[in-house]
């Protein structure tokens, strides 16, 4: 790690294009390395071990969901006064994680941040899988799952129509729009790479399957021209969604009148937290994945370091938001608001609050040190803290406000049940199972896009080439 070629990034020479890929940097080797993961006759042994565990957890999730549907929502810990419990906590947690993928693929694309090309595919896949886990919760917490279609404005014999003034309905549209756009964006980016896999396939089955999903891509200039244009349009469509989805999720709280929820800081605070948690999860999964599948030269330490910088920035924003909430509670002078925040820090859930502050505000500050943000172990540990901290943040927001609001006679203490815990663990199983299957059967790195940052794509001074450094 000491002789890392990323040091070739000359900050004193502003015209230099940074080296984004290590190792062999010709076009064919990129294809070989990425397709090699998919085409290897057998995945690494660790993959088998991992998917055995995660698929068992997924089965547990399905069992818990089936138990819930057959028995009723009473199997969870939600009860008066905490009518929202882990279901909403976990929903917000997973939706938050879903934010990194689209930020990397859309916003960084529009900002011409070329380093995104190595990680956008995997991050977008994580977005989709996290949305799957998130979407599960609202649809099962309605209780009568078979009536979940009532969420959508479909004319029916009951003359029942969704309440368009309710942020919960905005949420349905925000999250489903996000899921659809993310899926389209991810799939469209996959098409040229699927065609590569199709062309390299040796068995009929692979040729057929990859061929079907490659939609007849033949790499003609017209295809590329349309592809680039469509990609730009989708990026422009997805960019506002990165900001809007978690803003709408925050409205679920902010539009209500519960003290601790009814604050205008919620939308930006939630968006910063979502990006923070999303990048945390990307680091958590990419650090082992690049080791396991030998992609260290494509997903370099430079990429991880950049993501750690985003974690540091958004983590600091989240910390600022926590401080602002306290300041406004004091400065605003509303006694209920003041009580809620004192109760958060010193009440029965003090442990969750201070653990959250440690994980979200203190832990990321270590990333100021280059040694720490470029070491795999330290960044992995910090990213785990971020995951825990952001889950606790949602827990603190949902539970402390609900269990102690205006009426002391109806205060309570929320306790999750075993079903709550197993369902949440199960969503991790689902998320990781989908991710492991993705790693094995689809190109984890955007082959076509990575090629655009290689020297061969820039004959007159490309990324990290010697000529480029002096050329300008």
């Amino acid at each position: 790690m000491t002789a890392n070629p990323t040091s070739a990034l000359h900050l004193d020479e502003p015209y230099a294009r940074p080296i984004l890929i290590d190792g062999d940097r010709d076009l064919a080797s990129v294809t070989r390395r990425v397709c090699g993961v998919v085409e290897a006759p057998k995945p690494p042994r660790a993959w088998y071990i991992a998917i055995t565990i995660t698929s068992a957890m997924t089965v547990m999730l399905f069992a818990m969901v089936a138990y819930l549907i057959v028995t009723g929502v009473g199997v969870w810990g939600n009860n008066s006064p905490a009518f929202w419990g882990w279901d909403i906590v976990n929903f917000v947690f997973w939706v938050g994680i879903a934010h990194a993928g689209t930020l990397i693929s859309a916003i960084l694309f529009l900002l011409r941040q070329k380093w995104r090309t190595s990680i956008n595919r995997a991050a977008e896949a994580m977005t989709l899988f996290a949305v799957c886990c998130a979407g599960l919760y609202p649809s099962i917490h309605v209780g009568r799952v078979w009536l979940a279609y009532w969420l959508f404005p479909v004319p029916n014999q009951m003359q029942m129509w969704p309440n368009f003034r309710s942020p919960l309905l905005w949420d349905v549209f925000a999250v489903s729009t996000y899921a659809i756009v993310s899926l389209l964006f991810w799939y469209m980016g996959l098409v040229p790479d699927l065609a590569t896999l199709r062309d390299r396939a040796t068995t009929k089955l692979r040729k057929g399957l990859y061929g079907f999903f490659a939609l007849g891509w033949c790499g003609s200039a017209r295809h590329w021209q349309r592809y680039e244009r469509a990609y730009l349009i989708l990026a422009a469509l997805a960019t506002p969604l990165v900001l809007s989805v978690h803003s709408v999720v925050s409205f679920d709280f902010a539009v209500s009148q519960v003290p601790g929820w009814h604050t205008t800081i919620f939308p930006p605070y939630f968006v910063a937290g979502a990006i923070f948690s999303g990048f945390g999860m990307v680091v958590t999964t990419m650090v082992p994945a690049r080791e396991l599948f030998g992609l260290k030269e494509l997903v370099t330490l430079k990429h991880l370091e950049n993501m750690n910088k985003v974690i540091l920035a958004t983590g600091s924003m989240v910390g600022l938001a926590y401080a602002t909430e306290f300041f406004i509670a004091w400065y605003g002078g509303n006694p209920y608001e003041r009580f809620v925040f004192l109760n958060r820090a010193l009440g029965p859930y003090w442990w969750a609050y201070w653990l959250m502050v440690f994980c979200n505000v203190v832990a990321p500050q270590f990333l100021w040190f280059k040694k720490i943000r470029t070491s795999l172990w330290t960044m992995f540990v910090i990213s785990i803290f971020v995951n825990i901290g952001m889950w606790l943040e949602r827990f603190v927001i949902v539970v402390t406000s609900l269990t102690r609001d205006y009426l002391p006679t109806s205060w309570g203490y929320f306790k999750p049940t075993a079903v709550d815990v197993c369902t949440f663990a199960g969503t991790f199983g689902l998320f990781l199972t989908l991710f492991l299957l993705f790693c094995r059967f689809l190109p984890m790195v955007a082959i076509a896009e990575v090629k655009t940052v290689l020297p061969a794509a820039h004959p007159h001074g490309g990324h990290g080439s010697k000529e480029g450094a002096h050329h300008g």
Partner: protein
Amino acid sequence: MNFFPKWCNGLRTLAGAGAAAAGLYVVALVAYGASPKTLNVGFAPEQPVPFSHAMHAGELGLDCRYCHTTVEHGARAAIPPTETCMNCHTRIRPQSELLAPVFASWSDGASVRWKRVHDLPDYVYFDHSAHVTRGVACISCHGRVDTMERVRQEQPLSMGWCLDCHRNPTPNLRPPEFVTAMEWTPDRPAAEIGAEIAQAKNIQPSTDCSTCHR
């Protein structure tokens, strides 16, 4: 190698139209296909005894309340016990084979197993007396039973159908003394009469969820 032959290009417009049609189809399926208007109206099960409302209520002119005694006082319009039938049928056609289940019930005390025609879901609270005493006629919901050989469901009894009347009850209100009259026709516009009755009886039907779902 390309998986898709060239003629697939022609399918693209078809695929778009197909997707749009599929969306419309789902909406239409929920809105019309799954509606009680489609599923339930016209339901007329065969009864253990071919009791003819057309003969009893129409030809003979029995009042509805002769058999359905509780309709003005209770939530349910009672299905008459065998004893009510036997008020007449001890003398009239006492040998009829069609009436065999009634006589069997009379001798062993077990009820005749009538099949229910108008069946609301269990989560709906409906009170006949509340409607009948305010002047909602039998025919508004049950149709011209006096012309039915076998009783059939005339109205959808869907939630939307209930709400239509709860939102605007006046066209279905008549002086309570005529609620069971099958051929009563208003001499003035029905809504006008209904408005007067609504005024006099302070009829303001609620559309809160808890009105019917208690």
